[in-house]
């Protein structure tokens, strides 16, 4: 995670961060930002951009996704939930390149074979889930929108964009960016990661288990299908704001902790 801080020293990365953010916010608007459900979310093919940028610009894209989402929210009204939108999109732009370095070190993120596509899909799913968990959890905790709605819409939206649009964009753009020496590895001089390492394995397990657990608990608790016996009965009542907040938090902690170990 160190590079999330150190990248700010490089002017190119600052610019790439702003460009990733602006692209994310700008690509959708001309094609009608139709609120899928106003106040909840829109159908966002633009969600392909953070994934593409992540593989290209690494940490700059992670911040870019977070800032781009913030700008998008400025069009639809900023609110306290935007803090979680910021965090959720930060991981949505951070997880793809980070996990790809582990599962397919050294190979370009171009899903040209079935095995690579599967790896790519898993990496995107991990990013989408954690993004959905963070935003769904935060918004439910702030009594704005239920986890059961937002958490699932985000996963579906992100995965659709990541599986349908992002691969095509990557195929068109990645080789050109690589040639222009604008890949984050070239700018920051980051060496290829060597696979393996106990910490890394623990990190991956924590991340995946944590985010999956958070998603399941968030869904089940917010819809009243799971009664968390550890919590006082007074919290296990609609709208389940506190129950979701307390039930999902440990899993999220585990996932974010795992991410920090990568």
């Amino acid at each position, binding site marked *: 995670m160190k590079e999330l801080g150190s990248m700010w020293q490089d002017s190119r990365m600052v610019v790439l961060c702003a460009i990733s953010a602006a692209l994310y916010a700008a690509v959708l608007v001309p094609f009608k930002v139709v609120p899928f459900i106003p106040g909840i979310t829109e159908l966002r093919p633009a969600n392909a951009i953070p994934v593409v940028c992540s593989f290209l610009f690494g940490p700059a894209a992670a911040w870019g996704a977070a800032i781009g989402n913030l700008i998008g929210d400025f069009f639809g009204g900023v609110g306290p939930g935007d803090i979680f939108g910021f965090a959720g999109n930060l991981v949505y732009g951070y997880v793809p390149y980070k996990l790809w370095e582990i599962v397919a070190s050294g190979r370009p993120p171009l899903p040209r074979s079935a095995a690579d596509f599967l790896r790519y899909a898993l990496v995107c799913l991990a990013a989408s889930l954690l993004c959905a968990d963070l935003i769904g959890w935060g918004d439910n905790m702030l009594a704005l929108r239920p986890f059961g709605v937002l958490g699932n819409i985000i996963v579906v939206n992100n995965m659709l964009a990541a599986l349908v649009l992002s691969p095509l964009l990557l195929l*068109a753009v990645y*080789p*050109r960016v690589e*040639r222009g*020496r604008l890949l984050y590895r070239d700018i920051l001089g980051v060496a290829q990661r060597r696979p393996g390492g106990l910490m890394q394995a623990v990190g991956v397990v924590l991340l995946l288990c944590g985010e999956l657990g958070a998603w399941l608990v968030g869904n089940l608790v917010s819809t009243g299908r799971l009664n968390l016996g550890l919590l006082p009965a007074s919290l296990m009542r609609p709208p389940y704001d506190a129950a979701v907040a307390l039930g999902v938090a440990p899993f999220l902690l585990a996932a974010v902790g795992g991410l920090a170990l990568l």
Partner: protein
Amino acid sequence: MEGDRRTPSRQAQGLSDCPAASANACPAPWAVELRRVSFAYGASAEPALCEVTLKIEPGTMLGVVGASGAGKSTLVKTLNRLVPAFEAGRFEGEVRVGGRRLDGLRVCELAREVGMVFQDFEAQLFSTNVAHEVAFALEQFALARQEIARRIGPALSAVGLAGFERRDPTTLSGGEKQRLAIACALATEPAVLVLDEPTTDLDPQGRAEVFAAVRRLRGAGRTLIIVEHDLEELAVCDRLALLKEGRLTFEAPPAELFARPELVARCGLRLPDLAAVLKQLGIEEIARDVDEAEALVRGRYTLPGPAPAGGSPEGPAPGRAGQTKIGRPPLVEVRQLGLAYPASASEALSAVDLAVEAGEFVALVGKNGSGKSTLAKVLAGLLEPSRGRLLVDGKERSAAGRSHLKGDIGYVFQNPDHQIFAASVEEEIRFGPRNLGLSHRQTAERADQVLAAVGLDAVRQRDPFLLSKGERQRLAVAAVLALRPRLLILDEPTTGLDYREQRRMMALVAELNRQGIAIVMITHTPWLVADYARRVVLLDNGRKRFDGPVREFLGRPQMLAESAFGLPAATALSQRFGTTALSAGELVCWIRKHS
């Protein structure tokens, strides 16, 4: 190196390594000094700069000229260490600014000594307010708020932007944006100001504004270095440095370079009109403007005076709407066309009549915001008019269906990068025909044809993003040609190209026209209109002001001045003698005949 570098004004250079050679001590170092500077980008074996040695006196103005790829930008980027600190590559030699060696310095540390303005004005403005934009660099140097506020006004005044403090830079014209960029550089009070192709992407009005600002900056003791590939504006420089393939080929006052048209041509540059006329007439002296040129010509030839004022009467614009060749309706025609944008109070187009027939070559001219692009987009079917009729082949557009969107009328946008996306040149060209539902074999055939026509056959498998700007522009034309349009609309097809590429582009357009394709070309460039168009349509404030032959158009100086359309210098000179010549060659013939 060609040319005599020790001109009378600089003979001291051979005696001393100091600009003020008469003094015993060296009172001031050179403003800029390059010693055997070479640079190659990345791992490239081809050097972008090769052993360049150059010295610039403080307070002077140097023009750096050459064709695209000659090394001009690379040369000036060595002055603030963008090369090699930012652009990786192999660097050799030594650069000094104000006597200080730059080795090891960071780019940002040099910003107070060397101000730099770049070609792409969009990429160098970072704020939403003009005053904040000027303040940006000053904030970086942690100047006090009062000091920042004090410097904003004078910097803006110096470039004629006083009163613009609260404007959003995105609402400024290209010329204003570029002047703002100059103001930003001036605010840091640098000793050396570098302008790297500041007018390449601008229209003539913007160019004139920028050069007027640059002329105002002279004489303030600041050293100015301006990179250009158009020699016309550089006559005011103290010296010109001509680069070719990374080497400094010639360095002397402008007059000496203009006296060598063969060298200018060899380096891919366009000799200024006036220099060309004088040279062809056998006059050795150099004129900085039309007045001087007139005096020189009259000194050698006896010629009539200008036509009396109003001699080219400004009658009603020749109406051409609805004119047809017998039995054939115009290819495309608009009648009483009106169009208002939703957010705007006034109409972008108002009661415009226009007919374009098969095989015509029309130049569509007018100031920025006069409605040229709007009209062209209506013709292409991209914009729906609010009033009036649009006819294609004499049929209402609704009756013609969407055929205008499917090949009959092609539109090439100003920036070729707005349409290029495919992985190879050939794929890019096949995209359009494929959208029309053509078979694989048919799209391949069309690709073969247009690739040959635009001269890109050799690069058909290359990634379009690796092509030069000129090649990308031709690819954009080819991609539209593959749709077999009968009318081709070109929006500023030569913007950002150097002279050689402009000529090549226009030769292609002229050839397509000869083959029967009607051309409507939006342009601001006077010599393109004079050399290539046969008919001019002038728009003014959304209305058609003139529609007629080129010579008649250029013969109305009053109207042209009001429309901010600069005459080609040869045409302006010819009007001093009571005629309207379209080119330097034509004027020379006329003078010889009438003297």
